[in-house]
Each structure stands twice: as C-alpha cells, then as structure tokens.
C-alpha cells in the first residue's frame, strides 16, 4: 500500500491511499484503502491521514476517522491521538500496521506497530526525510 497526506499554502489538507491489497486475497476482497474513515481521511479542522496494514482491522476500528475525532472532540494533538489509536485500539483489535498524518499546523505523525514502515516527509524547508524501521 502507498499513501500520502499533504498541507498546502492555503491551509487545505488532503489524503490519498492506493493498494493491491493482500497477496492471494480472495477475489473481490476489499480492504481499508478505499474505505473513507478507515484507511483514508482528511478534515481541515483536524488532520489528513493514510493508513497501511491489515485492512480488516482498520475497517473495524474506523482508524483514520477515530484519530480525527479524538482531535476534534477530545482536544488531543495529532501525535497523541494517532499513537493512542495505533498502539492501543488497533493493538487491542489484533491488527498490524500504521498511519502517516499531517495536521493543519504541519505537524507530522507516523506511528506503526510493525517492525518497519516505508515512510518519509518533507516540510517547507525542502529537506526530505526517509525512514524504514522502528529504530529510525
């Protein structure tokens, strides 16, 4: 799966996700990537999110929207909200994976509960940062 979340100069957020799903998946199986609120979500009042991992768990946990809701209704910041959903809720459900997200202030979050996740970010200073593993 691949995904991207962006903040533009007008303050508008957007998120997108694209995938082939799971190897040897049953014909017709759909994961979280095209499900808005599960694998993809964006709202200018909170953040933009794209997820990757075991889609069934992200659908059951409504993971992307949950992060946005924690920010909107509970006043959590992006890092707190995304860590809570990935490290607590998704873990409780038994799902593996992670998310990348950016909020309206340009704060980044990339929590995951697997050994690694290909990820990177670039902010207005123009320096690209790429990471692979948990330790990075």
């Amino acid at each position, binding site marked *: 799966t691949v995904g991207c979340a*962006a903040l533009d100069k007008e303050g508008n957020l957007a998120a997108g996700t694209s995938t082939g799903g799971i190897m040897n998946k049953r014909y017709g199986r*759909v994961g979280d990537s095209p499900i808005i609120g599960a694998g993809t979500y964006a709202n200018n009042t909170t953040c933009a999110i794209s997820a990757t991992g075991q889609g069934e768990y992200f659908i059951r946990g409504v993971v992307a929207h949950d992060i946005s809701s924690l920010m909107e209704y509970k006043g959590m910041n992006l890092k707190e909200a995304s860590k809570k959903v990935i490290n607590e809720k998704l873990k409780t459900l038994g799902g593996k994976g992670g998310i990348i997200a950016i909020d309206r202030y*340009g704060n980044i979050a990339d929590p995951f509960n697997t050994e690694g996740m290909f990820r990177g970010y670039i902010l207005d200073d123009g320096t690209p940062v790429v990471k692979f593993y948990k330790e990075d």
Partner: protein
Amino acid sequence: TEFGLVLHGGAGSIYKGRFTAEEEKIYEDKIKEALNAGYEILKNNGTSIEAVTKVITILEDSPLFNAGKGAVLNSEGKVELDASIMSGKDLTVGAVARLSKIKNPILLANAVKDKSKHVFLIGDGAEIFAVEQGFEFVENEYFLTPEKLESFNKIKAEEKAKVQSSIQKNEEFKYG
C-alpha cells in the same frame, strides 16, 4: 509550518536485515523522488490534492510498492487495485475498488471525487466510468512483476502441499 507532506510505502514484511544496503538505497531514492515532486507542487502554490495525486502516481508507477505496477496478486492470479482520496477543505471524496485495467487508480478515485455525483465505484462500473473520462487502460499483466509472481507461486505451492498432506492424513485416519 506553511506547507508539507508525508507519505508511506507500506508496513508489511519490512524489518532490519531483509534488504541489502543497495536495496534500501533504491527505496530511499524513489521515496525522495516522490517527496520532492510533491514539494515542488506545494512550493509553487499547488493544492494538497494535486500533491497527493502526484506523489501516489509516482509510487503506483514504481514496481517497488504494493500499488499499481508491482501490486500483489489475488487468489485467481490477477491484480485487483483499490484507491481513495479525500479533500479536507470540503470533505469531498472519491474511492474505487476492484480495478484490473486502470494504470493509476488514484487518478480515477480523484475523477470520481470531482466528476461523479457518487463517492465509491467498483469493478466494471468504475472502469466504464474511466472510459467515459478518457482514462489510460493497460492489460492486467502490466501490473505483474517477477518478484510478486514468484511469491504468489510459492504460496500456491504451499497451499497445494497442505491440501495433499491433509488428504493423506484423512486417509490414514480412515484406515486406522
């Protein structure tokens, strides 16, 4: 921060020791290429939607990731692709699933968002919509890579061996 973007290229089977330094460099270069392309759009007053579609198109076109070219195979040995996109400005959305012939699913998802009254199109219906919108079609084989085909064949061989082993066990049980 005035603008910026963050991306991922999947979290499955990525652990220290799996990739050589050369392989890591190939992934790093492709991710940097995508980041820089998105950055140029945002720096030049492009929209976040434009940046997201550009970044994802680059990753879909690369055989390194499980999206577009290089995607995994379903149980029938075919590639089935899903994608979605959402604008935080007005909460508009486009999603597509079960595509087998669209080169860049994220662009079709964006077209569903902008040029359809619907939110989510799947399979044949999505591809008919793509024809109407003048999208680029490819054969399903375009998405296949030797690495993914090898993984698929390995899984199928393991499945076959499991079934045969199970049949043998049942026979033994029956005779026992």
